[in-house]
Protein backbone atom coordinates (compact mmCIF):
# COMPACT_ATOMS: atom_id res chain seq x y z
CA UNK A 1 0.00 0.00 0.00
CA UNK A 2 1.35 3.41 -0.88
CA UNK A 3 1.45 6.12 1.65
CA UNK A 4 -0.97 8.86 0.92
CA UNK A 5 0.27 12.34 1.43
CA UNK A 6 -2.63 14.63 1.91
CA UNK A 7 -2.40 17.24 -0.79
CA UNK A 8 -3.79 20.58 0.12
CA UNK A 9 -5.98 21.66 -2.76
CA UNK A 10 -6.45 25.26 -1.82
CA UNK A 11 -3.64 26.41 0.44
CA UNK A 12 -3.88 29.64 2.38
CA UNK A 13 -0.94 31.95 1.81
CA UNK A 14 0.83 34.32 4.15
CA UNK A 15 1.54 37.77 2.77
CA UNK A 16 5.22 38.15 1.90
CA UNK A 17 6.39 41.76 1.67
CA UNK A 18 9.83 40.50 0.70
CA UNK A 19 8.45 39.29 -2.59
CA UNK A 20 6.32 42.05 -4.01
CA UNK A 21 4.97 41.25 -7.49
CA UNK A 22 3.68 44.72 -8.25
CA UNK A 23 6.00 47.53 -7.11
CA UNK A 24 3.00 49.92 -7.14
CA UNK A 25 1.55 48.08 -4.13
CA UNK A 26 4.61 48.75 -1.98
CA UNK A 27 4.95 52.30 -3.26
CA UNK A 28 1.32 53.19 -2.51
CA UNK A 29 1.45 51.46 0.87
CA UNK A 30 4.45 53.61 1.81
CA UNK A 31 2.78 56.72 0.54
CA UNK A 32 -0.49 56.09 2.38
CA UNK A 33 1.11 55.14 5.66
CA UNK A 34 3.46 58.13 5.62
CA UNK A 35 0.42 60.35 4.97
CA UNK A 36 -1.45 58.94 7.97
CA UNK A 37 -3.26 61.57 10.04
CA UNK A 38 -6.12 61.98 12.51
CA UNK A 39 -8.55 64.92 12.79
CA UNK A 40 -7.35 65.64 16.33
CA UNK A 41 -4.17 67.15 14.90
CA UNK A 42 -6.12 69.99 13.24
CA UNK A 43 -7.15 72.83 15.62
CA UNK A 44 -10.74 73.04 14.36
CA UNK A 45 -11.92 75.10 17.32
CA UNK A 46 -10.04 78.08 15.85
CA UNK A 47 -12.83 78.20 13.26
CA UNK A 48 -15.61 78.93 15.77
CA UNK A 49 -15.28 82.69 15.38
CA UNK A 50 -15.17 82.48 11.61
CA UNK A 51 -18.25 80.24 11.58
CA UNK A 52 -20.18 82.80 13.61
CA UNK A 53 -19.59 85.37 10.87
CA UNK A 54 -21.34 83.31 8.16
CA UNK A 55 -24.98 84.07 7.36
CA UNK A 56 -27.71 81.42 7.53
CA UNK A 57 -27.55 80.49 3.83
CA UNK A 58 -23.81 80.08 4.03
CA UNK A 59 -24.03 77.95 7.14
CA UNK A 60 -26.77 75.79 5.66
CA UNK A 61 -24.81 75.18 2.45
CA UNK A 62 -21.64 74.31 4.36
CA UNK A 63 -23.38 71.96 6.78
CA UNK A 64 -25.14 70.12 3.97
CA UNK A 65 -21.97 69.86 1.92
CA UNK A 66 -20.16 68.24 4.85
CA UNK A 67 -23.07 65.87 5.47
CA UNK A 68 -22.99 64.81 1.81
CA UNK A 69 -19.26 64.17 2.08
CA UNK A 70 -19.83 62.12 5.23
CA UNK A 71 -22.30 59.95 3.35
CA UNK A 72 -19.83 59.29 0.53
CA UNK A 73 -17.02 58.43 2.91
CA UNK A 74 -19.37 56.14 4.84
CA UNK A 75 -20.14 54.27 1.63
CA UNK A 76 -16.48 54.04 0.68
CA UNK A 77 -15.46 52.90 4.16
CA UNK A 78 -18.11 50.25 4.70
CA UNK A 79 -18.83 48.97 1.20
CA UNK A 80 -16.64 50.52 -1.47
CA UNK A 81 -13.07 49.51 -0.94
CA UNK A 82 -14.23 46.36 0.85
CA UNK A 83 -16.06 45.21 -2.27
CA UNK A 84 -12.80 45.43 -4.22
CA UNK A 85 -10.91 43.03 -1.96
CA UNK A 86 -12.28 39.72 -3.35
CA UNK A 87 -10.88 40.55 -6.81
CA UNK A 88 -7.35 41.63 -5.98
CA UNK A 89 -4.44 40.63 -8.19
CA UNK A 90 -1.94 40.42 -5.31
CA UNK A 91 -2.05 39.95 -1.55
CA UNK A 92 -0.33 43.29 -1.16
CA UNK A 93 -3.23 44.90 -2.93
CA UNK A 94 -5.47 43.52 -0.16
CA UNK A 95 -3.23 45.18 2.41
CA UNK A 96 -3.33 48.53 0.58
CA UNK A 97 -7.11 48.35 0.27
CA UNK A 98 -7.43 47.63 3.99
CA UNK A 99 -5.49 50.80 4.70
CA UNK A 100 -7.76 52.68 2.33
CA UNK A 101 -10.88 51.33 4.07
CA UNK A 102 -9.59 52.51 7.41
CA UNK A 103 -8.70 55.98 6.14
CA UNK A 104 -12.18 56.41 4.66
CA UNK A 105 -13.54 55.84 8.16
CA UNK A 106 -11.09 58.43 9.48
CA UNK A 107 -12.43 60.84 6.86
CA UNK A 108 -16.05 60.11 7.76
CA UNK A 109 -15.28 60.67 11.43
CA UNK A 110 -13.43 63.91 10.66
CA UNK A 111 -16.61 65.55 9.39
CA UNK A 112 -18.21 64.70 12.71
CA UNK A 113 -15.32 66.49 14.43
CA UNK A 114 -16.09 69.59 12.38
CA UNK A 115 -19.79 69.31 13.22
CA UNK A 116 -19.30 68.88 16.92
CA UNK A 117 -16.95 71.88 16.95
CA UNK A 118 -19.21 74.25 15.04
CA UNK A 119 -22.83 73.07 15.36
CA UNK A 120 -25.46 72.31 17.97
CA UNK A 121 -26.86 68.79 18.25
CA UNK A 122 -30.16 69.93 16.78
CA UNK A 123 -28.39 71.43 13.76
CA UNK A 124 -26.38 68.24 13.24
CA UNK A 125 -29.55 66.12 13.37
CA UNK A 126 -31.26 68.44 10.90
CA UNK A 127 -28.36 68.03 8.46
CA UNK A 128 -28.38 64.24 8.66
CA UNK A 129 -32.14 64.22 8.12
CA UNK A 130 -31.57 66.38 5.04
CA UNK A 131 -29.05 63.86 3.65
CA UNK A 132 -31.72 61.15 3.77
CA UNK A 133 -34.28 63.32 1.99
CA UNK A 134 -32.16 65.03 -0.64
CA UNK A 135 -32.99 63.32 -3.90
CA UNK A 136 -29.79 63.93 -5.92
CA UNK A 137 -27.61 62.94 -2.97
CA UNK A 138 -29.54 59.72 -2.48
CA UNK A 139 -29.50 59.05 -6.21
CA UNK A 140 -25.72 59.30 -6.45
CA UNK A 141 -25.23 57.22 -3.32
CA UNK A 142 -27.62 54.57 -4.68
CA UNK A 143 -25.91 54.49 -8.07
CA UNK A 144 -22.54 53.80 -6.48
CA UNK A 145 -23.84 51.27 -3.95
CA UNK A 146 -25.62 49.34 -6.72
CA UNK A 147 -22.29 48.99 -8.49
CA UNK A 148 -20.57 47.79 -5.35
CA UNK A 149 -23.26 45.16 -4.90
CA UNK A 150 -23.18 44.22 -8.58
CA UNK A 151 -21.29 41.24 -9.98
CA UNK A 152 -18.80 42.96 -12.28
CA UNK A 153 -15.46 43.53 -10.50
CA UNK A 154 -14.23 46.00 -13.11
CA UNK A 155 -17.39 48.08 -12.88
CA UNK A 156 -16.93 48.17 -9.12
CA UNK A 157 -13.52 49.74 -9.71
CA UNK A 158 -14.95 52.24 -12.17
CA UNK A 159 -17.61 53.26 -9.62
CA UNK A 160 -14.99 53.50 -6.92
CA UNK A 161 -12.78 55.84 -8.96
CA UNK A 162 -15.85 57.94 -9.83
CA UNK A 163 -16.54 58.34 -6.14
CA UNK A 164 -12.94 59.06 -5.13
CA UNK A 165 -12.05 61.37 -7.99
CA UNK A 166 -15.33 62.99 -9.03
CA UNK A 167 -18.29 62.79 -6.63
CA UNK A 168 -16.48 64.35 -3.68
CA UNK A 169 -15.67 67.56 -5.48
CA UNK A 170 -19.05 69.29 -5.41
CA UNK A 171 -18.44 69.12 -1.64
CA UNK A 172 -14.72 69.88 -1.60
CA UNK A 173 -15.44 73.11 -3.43
CA UNK A 174 -17.04 74.71 -0.35
CA UNK A 175 -14.08 74.55 2.07
CA UNK A 176 -11.76 75.72 -0.74
CA UNK A 177 -14.14 78.62 -1.35
CA UNK A 178 -14.09 79.56 2.34
CA UNK A 179 -10.33 79.16 2.51
CA UNK A 180 -9.92 81.54 -0.45
CA UNK A 181 -11.86 84.12 1.60
CA UNK A 182 -9.79 83.43 4.73
CA UNK A 183 -12.79 81.77 6.43
CA UNK A 184 -12.90 78.34 8.11
CA UNK A 185 -9.23 77.89 7.32
CA UNK A 186 -8.68 75.04 9.77
CA UNK A 187 -11.60 73.13 8.34
CA UNK A 188 -10.02 73.69 4.93
CA UNK A 189 -6.70 72.32 6.22
CA UNK A 190 -8.44 69.17 7.35
CA UNK A 191 -10.29 68.80 4.04
CA UNK A 192 -6.98 69.20 2.20
CA UNK A 193 -5.69 66.13 4.03
CA UNK A 194 -8.72 64.23 2.77
CA UNK A 195 -8.23 65.59 -0.75
CA UNK A 196 -4.62 64.39 -0.70
CA UNK A 197 -5.69 60.88 0.35
CA UNK A 198 -8.46 60.67 -2.24
CA UNK A 199 -5.99 61.50 -5.02
CA UNK A 200 -3.91 58.45 -4.12
CA UNK A 201 -6.99 56.26 -3.71
CA UNK A 202 -8.36 57.22 -7.12
CA UNK A 203 -4.96 56.79 -8.73
CA UNK A 204 -4.39 53.37 -7.18
CA UNK A 205 -7.82 51.88 -7.90
CA UNK A 206 -7.66 53.30 -11.43
CA UNK A 207 -4.24 51.75 -11.86
CA UNK A 208 -5.54 48.33 -10.76
CA UNK A 209 -8.48 48.72 -13.14
CA UNK A 210 -5.99 49.22 -15.97
CA UNK A 211 -3.89 46.24 -14.91
CA UNK A 212 -7.00 44.07 -15.05
CA UNK A 213 -7.90 45.47 -18.48
CA UNK A 214 -4.65 44.05 -19.82
CA UNK A 215 -6.18 40.57 -19.48
CA UNK A 216 -9.47 41.56 -21.11
CA UNK A 217 -10.48 41.03 -24.74
CA UNK A 218 -10.69 44.07 -27.06
CA UNK A 219 -14.52 43.76 -27.01
CA UNK A 220 -14.63 43.78 -23.24
CA UNK A 221 -12.27 46.77 -23.12
CA UNK A 222 -14.51 48.65 -25.50
CA UNK A 223 -17.56 47.74 -23.41
CA UNK A 224 -15.92 49.02 -20.22
CA UNK A 225 -14.74 52.20 -21.88
CA UNK A 226 -18.25 53.00 -23.12
CA UNK A 227 -19.61 52.08 -19.73
CA UNK A 228 -17.22 54.50 -18.02
CA UNK A 229 -18.26 57.43 -20.18
CA UNK A 230 -21.98 56.62 -19.78
CA UNK A 231 -21.70 56.32 -16.01
CA UNK A 232 -19.77 59.58 -15.84
CA UNK A 233 -22.49 61.28 -17.87
CA UNK A 234 -25.21 59.91 -15.55
CA UNK A 235 -23.33 60.97 -12.45
CA UNK A 236 -22.54 64.33 -13.97
CA UNK A 237 -26.26 65.03 -14.46
CA UNK A 238 -26.95 64.07 -10.85
CA UNK A 239 -24.08 66.26 -9.67
CA UNK A 240 -25.51 69.19 -11.56
CA UNK A 241 -28.85 68.91 -9.72
CA UNK A 242 -27.04 68.38 -6.44
CA UNK A 243 -24.87 71.43 -7.07
CA UNK A 244 -27.93 73.57 -7.85
CA UNK A 245 -29.60 72.47 -4.61
CA UNK A 246 -26.54 73.44 -2.61
CA UNK A 247 -25.08 76.45 -4.35
CA UNK A 248 -27.90 78.26 -6.20
CA UNK A 249 -28.84 80.23 -3.08
CA UNK A 250 -25.28 81.64 -3.01
CA UNK A 251 -24.96 82.14 -6.76
CA UNK A 252 -21.93 79.83 -6.95
CA UNK A 253 -23.30 77.07 -9.18
CA UNK A 254 -21.43 78.00 -12.38
CA UNK A 255 -18.16 78.24 -10.51
CA UNK A 256 -18.71 74.81 -8.97
CA UNK A 257 -19.60 73.30 -12.36
CA UNK A 258 -16.22 74.29 -13.83
CA UNK A 259 -14.55 72.62 -10.86
CA UNK A 260 -16.66 69.48 -11.46
CA UNK A 261 -15.72 69.27 -15.14
CA UNK A 262 -12.07 69.72 -14.22
CA UNK A 263 -12.28 66.81 -11.80
CA UNK A 264 -14.34 64.71 -14.23
CA UNK A 265 -11.40 64.98 -16.62
CA UNK A 266 -9.00 63.81 -13.92
CA UNK A 267 -11.31 60.92 -13.07
CA UNK A 268 -11.16 59.70 -16.66
CA UNK A 269 -7.38 60.00 -16.64
CA UNK A 270 -7.21 57.96 -13.44
CA UNK A 271 -9.02 55.22 -15.36
CA UNK A 272 -6.58 55.56 -18.26
CA UNK A 273 -8.87 57.50 -20.61
CA UNK A 274 -8.38 60.87 -22.24
CA UNK A 275 -10.01 63.96 -20.76
CA UNK A 276 -13.55 64.67 -21.99
CA UNK A 277 -14.11 68.39 -21.42
CA UNK A 278 -12.03 70.88 -23.47
CA UNK A 279 -9.82 73.36 -21.63
CA UNK A 280 -12.22 76.31 -22.05
CA UNK A 281 -14.87 74.37 -20.08
CA UNK A 282 -12.63 73.55 -17.16
CA UNK A 283 -11.33 76.97 -16.25
CA UNK A 284 -11.50 76.71 -12.50
CA UNK A 285 -11.75 79.97 -10.60
CA UNK A 286 -8.08 80.85 -9.87
CA UNK A 287 -8.93 81.60 -6.23
CA UNK A 288 -10.29 78.06 -5.78
CA UNK A 289 -7.30 76.54 -7.53
CA UNK A 290 -4.95 78.59 -5.37
CA UNK A 291 -6.72 77.32 -2.25
CA UNK A 292 -6.24 73.79 -3.51
CA UNK A 293 -2.71 74.29 -4.80
CA UNK A 294 -0.75 77.44 -4.07
CA UNK A 295 1.71 78.18 -6.90
CA UNK A 296 -0.35 76.29 -9.45
CA UNK A 297 -0.88 79.35 -11.62
CA UNK A 298 0.68 79.75 -15.01
CA UNK A 299 3.19 82.34 -13.83
CA UNK A 300 5.11 79.54 -12.22
CA UNK A 301 5.76 77.86 -15.55
CA UNK A 302 8.44 78.98 -17.98
CA UNK A 303 6.46 77.90 -21.07
CA UNK A 304 3.10 79.39 -20.20
CA UNK A 305 4.12 82.39 -18.14
CA UNK A 306 6.13 85.25 -19.53
CA UNK A 307 9.40 83.40 -19.96
CA UNK A 308 11.53 86.53 -19.93
CA UNK A 309 10.61 87.37 -16.35
CA UNK A 310 11.25 83.87 -15.14
CA UNK A 311 13.95 83.66 -12.51
CA UNK A 312 15.96 80.49 -12.40
CA UNK A 313 16.25 79.06 -8.92
CA UNK A 314 19.41 79.86 -7.04
CA UNK A 315 22.17 77.38 -7.75
CA UNK A 316 22.61 74.82 -5.05
CA UNK A 317 25.97 73.12 -4.97
CA UNK A 318 25.12 69.54 -5.82
CA UNK A 319 27.00 66.76 -4.13
CA UNK A 320 26.11 63.17 -4.69
CA UNK A 321 25.02 62.56 -1.13
CA UNK A 322 22.59 65.50 -1.45
CA UNK A 323 20.48 63.36 -3.65
CA UNK A 324 19.68 61.01 -0.84
CA UNK A 325 16.46 62.84 0.05
Amino acid sequence: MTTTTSKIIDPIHAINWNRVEDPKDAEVWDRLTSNFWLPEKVPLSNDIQSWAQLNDDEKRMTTRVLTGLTLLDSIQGTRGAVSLIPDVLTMHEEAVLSNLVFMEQVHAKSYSSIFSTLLSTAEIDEAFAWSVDNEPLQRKARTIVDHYEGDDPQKRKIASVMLESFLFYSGFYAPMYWSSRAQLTNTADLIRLIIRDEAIHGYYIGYKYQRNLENDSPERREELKNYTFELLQDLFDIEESYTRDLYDPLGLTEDVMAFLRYNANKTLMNLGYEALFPSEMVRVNPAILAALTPNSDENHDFFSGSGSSYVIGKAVETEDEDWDF
Partner: protein
Amino acid sequence: MQTSASLIYFSSVSNYTHRFVEKLKLPEGQTARLPLRTNEETLSAEEPFVLMLPTYGANGGKGSVPKQVIKFLNVESNRNLLRGVIGSGNTNFHDSYCIAGDIVAQKCAVPHLYRFELMGTEDDVSKVHKGLEEFWKQQSSLLTV
Protein backbone atom coordinates in the same frame (compact mmCIF):
# COMPACT_ATOMS: atom_id res chain seq x y z
CA MET B 1 23.17 52.96 -22.31
CA GLN B 2 23.99 56.15 -24.19
CA THR B 3 21.27 58.40 -25.54
CA SER B 4 21.17 61.60 -27.56
CA ALA B 5 17.52 62.22 -26.73
CA SER B 6 16.49 65.79 -25.96
CA LEU B 7 13.66 64.64 -23.69
CA ILE B 8 14.52 62.10 -21.01
CA TYR B 9 11.76 60.99 -18.68
CA PHE B 10 10.85 58.72 -15.83
CA SER B 11 7.52 56.93 -15.75
CA SER B 12 6.54 54.22 -13.28
CA VAL B 13 4.57 51.09 -14.21
CA SER B 14 1.42 53.22 -14.23
CA ASN B 15 2.77 54.75 -17.48
CA TYR B 16 1.06 58.15 -17.22
CA THR B 17 4.17 60.16 -18.06
CA HIS B 18 5.02 57.64 -20.74
CA ARG B 19 1.64 58.20 -22.34
CA PHE B 20 2.12 61.94 -22.23
CA VAL B 21 5.45 61.56 -24.04
CA GLU B 22 3.81 59.33 -26.65
CA LYS B 23 1.22 62.02 -27.29
CA LEU B 24 3.99 64.53 -28.04
CA LYS B 25 4.83 62.42 -31.11
CA LEU B 26 8.48 63.44 -31.13
CA PRO B 27 10.78 61.78 -33.68
CA GLU B 28 12.27 58.45 -32.68
CA GLY B 29 15.49 58.84 -30.72
CA GLN B 30 14.40 62.23 -29.39
CA THR B 31 12.90 60.68 -26.25
CA ALA B 32 14.36 58.18 -23.80
CA ARG B 33 12.78 56.55 -20.75
CA LEU B 34 14.83 55.93 -17.63
CA PRO B 35 14.99 52.29 -16.54
CA LEU B 36 12.13 51.24 -14.25
CA ARG B 37 14.28 49.45 -11.71
CA THR B 38 17.01 51.09 -9.70
CA ASN B 39 19.32 48.09 -10.09
CA GLU B 40 19.35 48.53 -13.87
CA GLU B 41 22.11 50.58 -15.44
CA THR B 42 20.98 54.18 -15.88
CA LEU B 43 21.14 56.21 -19.09
CA SER B 44 24.08 58.30 -20.15
CA ALA B 45 23.08 61.55 -21.88
CA GLU B 46 25.20 62.81 -24.77
CA GLU B 47 23.26 65.92 -25.76
CA PRO B 48 21.53 68.69 -23.78
CA PHE B 49 18.12 67.49 -22.60
CA VAL B 50 14.98 68.32 -20.67
CA LEU B 51 13.97 65.96 -17.88
CA MET B 52 10.34 65.04 -17.32
CA LEU B 53 9.44 63.49 -13.99
CA PRO B 54 6.31 62.76 -11.96
CA THR B 55 5.51 63.47 -8.33
CA TYR B 56 3.44 60.71 -6.74
CA GLY B 57 2.44 62.18 -3.43
CA ALA B 58 2.92 64.88 -0.90
CA ASN B 59 5.04 64.66 2.12
CA GLY B 60 6.86 67.96 2.29
CA GLY B 61 9.13 66.89 -0.53
CA LYS B 62 10.87 64.08 1.31
CA GLY B 63 11.30 61.07 -0.94
CA SER B 64 9.54 62.88 -3.77
CA VAL B 65 12.22 62.50 -6.42
CA PRO B 66 12.06 58.93 -7.78
CA LYS B 67 15.18 56.93 -6.93
CA GLN B 68 15.71 56.14 -10.60
CA VAL B 69 15.95 59.88 -11.32
CA ILE B 70 18.40 60.38 -8.45
CA LYS B 71 20.60 57.60 -9.81
CA PHE B 72 20.56 59.22 -13.25
CA LEU B 73 21.35 62.72 -11.98
CA ASN B 74 24.08 61.51 -9.70
CA VAL B 75 26.11 61.02 -12.86
CA GLU B 76 27.81 64.37 -13.23
CA SER B 77 27.95 64.32 -17.02
CA ASN B 78 24.16 63.84 -17.07
CA ARG B 79 23.63 66.70 -14.67
CA ASN B 80 25.79 69.00 -16.78
CA LEU B 81 23.61 68.47 -19.83
CA LEU B 82 20.31 69.08 -18.01
CA ARG B 83 18.69 72.28 -19.34
CA GLY B 84 15.19 72.24 -17.86
CA VAL B 85 12.57 70.22 -16.05
CA ILE B 86 8.93 69.38 -16.76
CA GLY B 87 6.91 68.06 -13.83
CA SER B 88 3.74 66.03 -13.65
CA GLY B 89 1.54 65.46 -10.64
CA ASN B 90 -1.84 66.15 -9.11
CA THR B 91 -3.09 69.49 -7.74
CA ASN B 92 -4.65 67.49 -4.89
CA PHE B 93 -1.16 67.41 -3.38
CA HIS B 94 -1.45 71.07 -2.34
CA ASP B 95 1.95 72.76 -2.08
CA SER B 96 3.68 69.52 -3.08
CA TYR B 97 2.19 69.70 -6.57
CA CYS B 98 5.03 68.64 -8.92
CA ILE B 99 7.48 69.16 -6.08
CA ALA B 100 9.93 66.60 -7.47
CA GLY B 101 10.33 68.92 -10.47
CA ASP B 102 10.87 71.91 -8.18
CA ILE B 103 13.54 70.05 -6.22
CA VAL B 104 15.49 68.99 -9.28
CA ALA B 105 15.14 72.44 -10.90
CA GLN B 106 16.45 74.12 -7.78
CA LYS B 107 19.29 71.71 -7.14
CA CYS B 108 20.50 71.88 -10.72
CA ALA B 109 19.68 75.58 -11.25
CA VAL B 110 17.56 75.04 -14.34
CA PRO B 111 14.01 76.32 -15.01
CA HIS B 112 10.89 74.31 -14.18
CA LEU B 113 9.42 74.73 -17.63
CA TYR B 114 5.91 73.36 -17.26
CA ARG B 115 3.66 71.29 -15.04
CA PHE B 116 0.74 69.08 -15.92
CA GLU B 117 -1.55 66.59 -14.20
CA LEU B 118 -1.61 62.81 -14.62
CA MET B 119 -1.26 62.00 -18.33
CA GLY B 120 -1.93 65.59 -19.43
CA THR B 121 -4.73 67.09 -21.53
CA GLU B 122 -4.58 67.96 -25.23
CA ASP B 123 -3.90 71.51 -24.18
CA ASP B 124 -0.87 70.43 -22.13
CA VAL B 125 0.46 68.37 -25.02
CA SER B 126 0.33 71.25 -27.48
CA LYS B 127 1.81 73.71 -24.97
CA VAL B 128 4.73 71.42 -24.20
CA HIS B 129 5.28 70.62 -27.87
CA LYS B 130 5.44 74.28 -28.81
CA GLY B 131 7.28 75.23 -25.63
CA LEU B 132 10.05 72.70 -26.19
CA GLU B 133 10.52 73.77 -29.78
CA GLU B 134 10.97 77.40 -28.75
CA PHE B 135 13.10 76.46 -25.79
CA TRP B 136 15.64 74.61 -27.95
CA LYS B 137 15.69 77.46 -30.47
CA GLN B 138 16.46 79.84 -27.61
CA GLN B 139 19.15 77.53 -26.33
CA SER B 140 20.93 77.28 -29.68
CA SER B 141 20.80 81.05 -30.19
CA LEU B 142 22.43 81.42 -26.77
CA LEU B 143 25.27 79.19 -27.97
CA THR B 144 25.93 81.11 -31.16
CA VAL B 145 26.11 84.52 -29.46
